[in-house]
């Protein structure tokens, strides 16, 4: 037997599994998104109505734009908040460093629900923030912070922050600390050193962290479902109601395809920008 024969042999079963339960269902999804649906089951009749509904009705267009906005905001927040943490963790000489790393990553172990529930407790109309502000006399009636898009953004950024810390840490670990020393010895202060040396050399980590957070955020269901409401629908919550409540699978599939496309478009845009800045 030729050596590569054994590669085929090894891969056969898992490859069949992935073809059957991943590739085929995705293809099916792509096709149902272009089929008409009758009583939940798509029927064999091609149509673009699903997409035109989703892309013209204000309710749906708003949801799509809101979702992308949430994704961008969450990605930016994750990167902005994750950078100082990653920088400190990588550069510190403290012997508590491993503990701090573990602490920063531990939220990853918790389900998104756990991570989001705390925000609900904190921000609901009779939560500690409202109670505190009322007691201090700053406000006379509880603030309605829930449901709102802003809180969804905060909740998701919180849930995804460890990913940002991780990707940026990985990038920072690849930067030779002597480069920063060289810049400083040549007269660059801390801020200039950071802006002209550290940041450009960790751009890949920043972009990676942003993309990762963006991708997970636009496909997240639990956080918008808990912290949002009817006025703050996202693609994920809409997909859920299409599939499970309205039982319109074609519309759900079409929204799924739009969700997929959004993440690919942003991915492509960023890769394009990266290529341009390189040349």
């Amino acid at each position: 037997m030729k050596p590569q024969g054994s590669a085929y042999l090894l891969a056969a079963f898992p490859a069949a599994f992935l073809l059957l339960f991943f590739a085929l269902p995705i293809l099916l999804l792509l096709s149902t998104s272009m089929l008409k649906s009758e009583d939940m089951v798509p029927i064999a009749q091609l149509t673009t109505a699903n997409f035109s509904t989703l892309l013209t009705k204000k309710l749906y267009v708003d949801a799509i734009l809101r979702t992308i906005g949430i994704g961008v905001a969450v990605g930016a927040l994750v990167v902005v908040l994750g950078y100082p943490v990653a920088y400190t963790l990588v550069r510190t000489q403290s012997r508590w460093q491993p503990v701090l790393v573990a602490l920063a990553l531990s939220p990853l172990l918790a389900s998104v629900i756990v991570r989001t529930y705390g925000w609900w407790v904190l921000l609901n109309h009779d939560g500690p923030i409202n109670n505190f502000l009322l007691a201090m006399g700053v406000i006379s009636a509880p603030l309605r912070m829930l449901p709102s898009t802003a809180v969804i953004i905060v909740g998701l950024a919180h849930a995804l922050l460890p990913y940002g810390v991780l990707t940026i840490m990985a990038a920072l670990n690849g930067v030779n600390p002597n480069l920063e020393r060289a810049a400083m010895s040549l007269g660059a202060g801390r801020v200039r050193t950071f802006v002209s040396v550290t940041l450009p050399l960790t751009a890949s980590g920043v972009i990676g962290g942003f993309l990762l957070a963006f991708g997970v955020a636009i496909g997240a269901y639990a956080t918008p479902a808990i912290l949002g409401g009817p006025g703050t629908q996202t693609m994920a919550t809409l997909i859920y109601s299409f599939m499970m409540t309205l039982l319109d699978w074609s519309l759900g599939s079409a929204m799924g395809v739009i969700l997929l496309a959004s993440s690919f478009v942003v991915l492509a845009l960023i890769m394009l920008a990266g290529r341009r800045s390189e040349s």
Partner: protein
Amino acid sequence: MPEAALELRGLTKHFGASVTVGPIDLIVRQGEFVTLLGPSGCGKTTTLNMIGGFVTPDAGGIHLAGSPVETLPPWRRDLGIVFQDYALFPHRTVAENIGFGLRMRRVGRAEIARRVYEAMQLVRLDGLGDRRPGQLSGGQRQRVALARALVIRPSLLLLDEPLSNLDLKLREEMRIEISTLQRRLGIAALFVTHDQEEALTMSDRIAVMRGGRIEQLGSAREIYEAPASAFVAGFIGSTNLIRGSVIAPRQPGGTVRVDTGAGPAMIPIVGDLPDGGAVLLMIRPERLKLASPGAAPEGTNAWSAQVVRTIYLGGRMEVRLRLRDGGTAIAYAVNEGETDWDEGEMVDAWFRPRDAWVIPGPAEDSDAQATNCLR
């Protein structure tokens, strides 16, 4: 007298309870080239990092051109630093790398361009200004790093093993190039290495470090000819170390008699040597000569020895000897094409009194040094 370019007073850094670098006292005069020489982990980089402002000392003072800098951040110290890994900014061109320090000093564009061009000529990098560091050879990167440090006309140049990543031939070239440049520009330099040959060829003075302290400071000649300890002797060049004891400390003619297992030796008095005190007698292999039995010159110390092995090294012969007490010694004989020492032959190994010297000992690690001397 002008201020020293660098003065370190009792500079000390502790790492945990067990590792201490310092206290270090050192003066680098204007225009002088001083080398910190020592084995791995002896604290050379830490010393440079304290001078550079990247490591905060626990005690002691640092003066650059007469003024204290301990409290200044790195970017106010006006130093040119060449790092072991060069630390070139990979995302910037060669010219941008070299001009970085000038840009930070808010020098005008045209002036930067001119000085960068000059610096590139100085280190023979003409025409490579638009390349990225990744597109350069090791030697070229080295030159960029040097130009980047020199172009800001620093008050002091710090170089941390800048040559250790180059191959032998390039290393030898760069040694000359760096010290020629340094002399031409008159910039004081503190150079770090663990390569003794580098230290000997480049330095005005050498500070031999061991375990975080400077063990001896002096010119290349002083360090080689009068090492202050077995460690220094072993670290620079090769040395025969022979245990002995002082028999008569004060002989007429300013000499002292030392008895060793290989035979007695008369040597000049150095410092205070107690009667009967244990010492280590050191002779450089090139100062240990060979003669047929009984043919050693008058007034020299001669020991009878047996040739164990001769190794042909081109310009010289390395002759390994067994001494009377069974100990080993090495002699380098200039290859003059006449004498040949056969293995097994009995010879007289002789040396002039002033070619040997003693230090109190034997050091507890003299055996380690004795093997060290066979390098």
